[in-house]
C-alpha cells in the first residue's frame, strides 16, 4: 500500500483532520495527567499504616466540671479518672486490649510533631517525627509489630499534664526513624534528644511500621517517623485506642460509651466520640477518593467523546468517498485493502495527534507542577495514554471502515 493517495486525500480535508488531531492531542494530555493523579491517590490510599486496622476503634471523651487543669492536684485527679476509664474499658467482655493515646495514624488531629536530635540541646533536629503518648498496652492495642528490643512495661510509664515538656527516658521508635538516625542498624539502646531537649531518651524497642496522624503535604514528608512515648497525658479530655476481640467490634463499640457513663456520668462523649478505625481511614482519604473518582469520570467522558468523534468523522468520510471506494474496488482493490486503507489513515491522523498530545501532556504537567506543586509525569503514563488513545481510535474506525469495505464495485457507476 502506498501512502501517497492517502496523504493527498487527507489534504482535501484539512480542517476536519486538524480538528481530530487537536482533539486527540487534548484528550491525551488530559487523560495522561488524570491517570497520573489517580495513580498517585491510589498509592496514597493503599499505603499501610502499620496498625492491625480490623477490630480497632477510638474513644474520645471529655470530663466536665474540671475547669482548672493546672496544678499538681488536678493532674493527679485527672490521671486517676483516666486509669479508671482504662480499667472499665478493659473489663468489657468484648474488649481485648486498651491503651490511652493522643492521636492515631490518619486521624489528622491532635498530632504532636517535634524534632529528634542526636546530641543534647541541638539547635537543628536531625529529623522530624510525630509522638504518640501512650502506655505499656500500646503494642497489642494498636496491633503494631515489634521487630527489635522490648515493649514498654508498667514501670516505664509516667503521667504528666498535656503541654508539659516531652522528656521521657525510654521510647520505642519506628524502623524508619531507626534507619534514618542510625543507618548502620545500631539504633537499639542508643540515646536521642527530643524537641531540642537536654535529657536523653533511650531507644528500648523498634516497631516495623507506624504512620503519623497527619495526611497533608507537610506531614507526608515524615509519614512513617513515629515515636511511642510511655506517658499518659492528663487533660480534661482523653482518647483511648480499643481493640475488640475478633468479630466483636460492633458489640464493643456499643458497650464502651454505656460503661464509661456508668463509671462516671460527668463527661461528654460526642456523637463522633466512638469511631471505628475504618471510619477514621475513610474520613482521612475522602478527598483523595473524590478526586480520583472525578478524574476517572472526566477521563472516561473524554475517551467516549473522542471515540464517538472519530467514529462520526470516519463515517462521514466513508459516505463522501463511496464513489472513489467503488472505483478502487472495480480496479481490483480487495475488501482488506479498503479496510486497511481507513485503519492506516486513522493511524496517521491519531499518531500525529498523539505526538502533539505528548507535548501538551508534558506542558500541562509543568503548569500543574508550577501552580499546584504536583509531581513530574512519568514516561510510562504518557506511553500508556498513547497506546490507549491509539487502540480506542482504531476500534472506533473499524465499524465505518468495515462498511466502506462492503461497498460494491458497481456503486462506482450507480451513484453517478
Amino acid at each position, binding site marked *: 500500500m502506498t501512502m501517497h493517495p492517502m496523504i493527498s486525500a487527507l489534504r482535501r480535508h484539512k*480542517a*476536519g483532520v486538524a*480538528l*481530530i488531531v*487537536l*482533539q486527540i492531542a*487534548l*484528550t491525551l*494530555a*488530559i487523560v495522561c*495527567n488524570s491517570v497520573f*493523579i489517580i495513580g498517585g491517590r491510589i498509592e496514597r490510599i493503599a499505603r499501610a499504616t502499620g496498625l492491625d486496622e480490623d477490630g480497632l476503634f477510638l474513644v474520645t471523651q*471529655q470530663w*466536665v*466540671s*474540671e*475547669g*482548672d*487543669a*493546672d*496544678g499538681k492536684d488536678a*493532674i493527679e485527679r485527672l490521671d486517676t479518672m483516666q486509669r479508671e476509664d482504662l480499667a472499665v474499658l478493659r473489663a468489657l467482655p468484648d474488649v481485648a486490649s486498651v491503651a490511652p493515646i493522643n492521636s492515631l495514624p490518619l486521624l489528622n488531629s491532635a498530632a504532636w510533631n517535634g524534632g529528634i536530635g542526636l546530641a543534647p540541646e541541638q*539547635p*537543628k533536629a536531625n529529623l522530624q517525627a510525630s509522638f504518640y503518648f501512650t502506655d505499656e498496652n500500646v503494642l497489642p492495642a494498636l496491633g503494631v509489630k515489634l521487630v527489635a528490643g522490648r515493649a514498654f512495661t508498667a514501670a516505664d510509664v509516667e503521667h*504528666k499534664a498535656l*503541654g*508539659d*515538656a516531652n*522528656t521521657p527516658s525510654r521510647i520505642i521508635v519506628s524502623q524508619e526513624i531507626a534507619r534514618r538516625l542510625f543507618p548502620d542498624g545500631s539504633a537499639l539502646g542508643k540515646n536521642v534528644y527530643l*524537641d*531540642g*531537649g537536654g535529657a536523653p531518651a533511650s531507644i528500648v524497642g523498634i516497631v516495623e511500621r507506624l504512620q503519623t496522624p497527619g495526611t497533608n503535604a507537610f506531614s507526608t514528608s515524615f509519614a512513617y517517623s513515629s515515636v511511642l512515648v510511655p506517658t499518659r497525658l492528663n487533660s*480534661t479530655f482523653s482518647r483511648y485506642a480499643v481493640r475488640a476481640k475478633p468479630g466483636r467490634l460492633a458489640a464493643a463499640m456499643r458497650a464502651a460509651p454505656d460503661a464509661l457513663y456508668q463509671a462516671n456520668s*460527668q463527661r*461528654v462523649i*460526642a456523637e463522633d466520640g466512638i469511631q471505628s478505625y475504618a471510619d477514621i481511614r475513610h*474520613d482521612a482519604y*475522602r*478527598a483523595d*477518593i*473524590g*478526586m480520583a473518582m*472525578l478524574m476517572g*469520570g*472526566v477521563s472516561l*467522558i473524554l475517551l467516549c*467523546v*473522542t471515540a*464517538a*468523534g472519530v467514529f*462520526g*468523522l470516519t463515517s*462521514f*468520510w466513508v*459516505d463522501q468517498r463511496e464513489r472513489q471506494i467503488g472505483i478502487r474496488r472495480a480496479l481490483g482493490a480487495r475488501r482488506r485493502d479498503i479496510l486497511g486503507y481507513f485503519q492506516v489513515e486513522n493511524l496517521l491522523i491519531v499518531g500525529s495527534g498523539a505526538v502533539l498530545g505528548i507535548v501538551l501532556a508534558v506542558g*500541562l504537567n509543568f503548569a*500543574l507542577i508550577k*501552580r*499546584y506543586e*504536583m509531581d513530574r509525569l512519568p514516561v510510562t503514563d504518557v506511553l500508556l495514554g498513547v497506546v490507549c488513545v491509539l487502540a480506542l481510535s482504531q476500534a472506533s474506525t473499524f465499524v465505518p471502515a468495515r462498511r466502506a469495505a462492503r461497498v460494491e464495485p458497481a456503486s462506482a457507476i450507480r451513484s453517478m
Partner: protein
Amino acid sequence: MTARGQGLFSYYLELALRSFRRSPGLTALMVLAIGFGVAASMTTFSVFRAVSGDPIPWKSQRLFVPQVDVWGPSERGKDGEPPAALDYRTATSLLNDRRGSMQAAIYKVSPAVLAMRAGSHPVNVDGHAVSSDFFPMLEVPFAFGSGWSRQDDERRANVVVIGDTLNRRLFQGRNSVGESLQVAGKSYRIVGVLAHWDPQPRFFDIVNTGGFTTTREDVFLPFETAVGAGMASTGNTGCSKSPSEGGITGLKESTCVWISYLVQLDDANAVRSYRAYLDGYARQLQDSGATTWAPNNRLRDVPAWLDAQHVVPADTGVSLLVALGLLIVCLVNTSGLLLAKFLRRSGEIGVRRAIGAPRGAIYAQFLTEAGMIGIAGGLLGLALTGLGVACVHWLLPADIASLARVDFALLVLTLLLALISTLLAGLYPTFRATLVQPTWQLKSQ
C-alpha cells in the same frame, strides 16, 4: 425582529429540525458532548466558586493578619515565612498597644457547657476566646444583645456570647441574654446571642481550620478570661522548643504559637505605620535579647492571607482546569462533527445560493442549527450539573462539599456557556458552508 425576520427564523428552525431528523445519531452525539462538557465544567466551577470566595468582601482589604518571627531562621521554611500564629507575649503586646482602629486576639476553645437548670446535661461545644473588638470588627450579626465591652476584657468578666444553634439547643431559641451558663465548670453571664453566622473560609482562624470547617461557632469568651481560667487552646500549638512548665502557665511564658490575630487598618498610611510598629516591636525583642535575628514580620490583608495559607485546595483548581479541558475537547469534537454535517449538505447550500440566498442567510441558517444544539446541550448540561453537584456532596469532604450548591446564577451560566461555546464551535463550519460555490455544486451533481 421584523415579521419577515421571524418567518425566516422559523424557516431556519424547521430546516435545522429536518437536519436533526436526517442524522439523529450525529445530533445526539453533539448534544451529549456539549451536555457532559458543560456539566463537568459547571460542577467543578461550583466547588471552585465556593472555596475561592471572599468571606467578608466589603471589608477584607482593611483587615490584616500580622506575623512576628519569634522562632528565628532555623525554623523558617524555604520562603522565609515566620510562624503563622502569634505567641502569647506578642499577642498581648499588640493588643495593649492598640495601634489599629480595632484588633482582636483569637484562640480556639472547646469547653463543656451546662445550662443552669435542673436535669440538664453538659454538652461539648466549640468556639473561640476573643477580644471585645472581634464582634464590631468582623461585623458579626447578633440576634439578641451584643458583644462585651473593653472594660469587660480588662477586668476579665465572666461573660459569654453564644451561637444561634446552641441557643436553640439550650434555650429553645428565645432571648437568653442575662441567663447564666456554666462553661468548663465556671459560671458565665450571656450578653449576646448571634444570628446565623458561618463565614467560609473561617478567615479569623485559618491556622486551626485550614479554611473550611463544619465546626460551629457555639461560644465566644473574653480572651483574658479564658486564659485566666486556664482554658487550654484546643487548636494547633506550634513550639520551636518545649515550654518549661506545663499547662497554660507554661504556654504563656513560651514562644509557642497558638493565637490568631486580626487588626483593622483603614488606609494605606495606617498600614505603613503598622508595619513600622511591627518592625519596632521585633527590634525591641532583638535589643532585649529575646531574639537574635533581624525583624522578619509579615502583614497581609485577608485575601492575601488566604492565598498565602493555600486555603483554596489545590485539588479544586486542578479539577476546574481538567474540566475546562474536557469542555474544550467537547467543543473541538462538536466543531468537527458540525463541519462534516454542514459540508455533507453542500448540494442543498448550492441550490439555496443559486436561487438567490445571500451568504448572510447561510450564516443565519447554520448558526441557528448550531445554537439549537447548544440549547439542547445546555438543558442536558443543567440536569447533569444538578447530578454532578449531588455527587460532589457525596464524594468530597463535608467541609467543602456543603458549600457547593446550584443556584440561579449557576443555572443561567450553564445555559449561556453551552449556547455561546456551541456557537463558537459552529462558527468555522458555518464559514466553510458559506464558501460553497453555487455553480460548482450544481455542476457536480
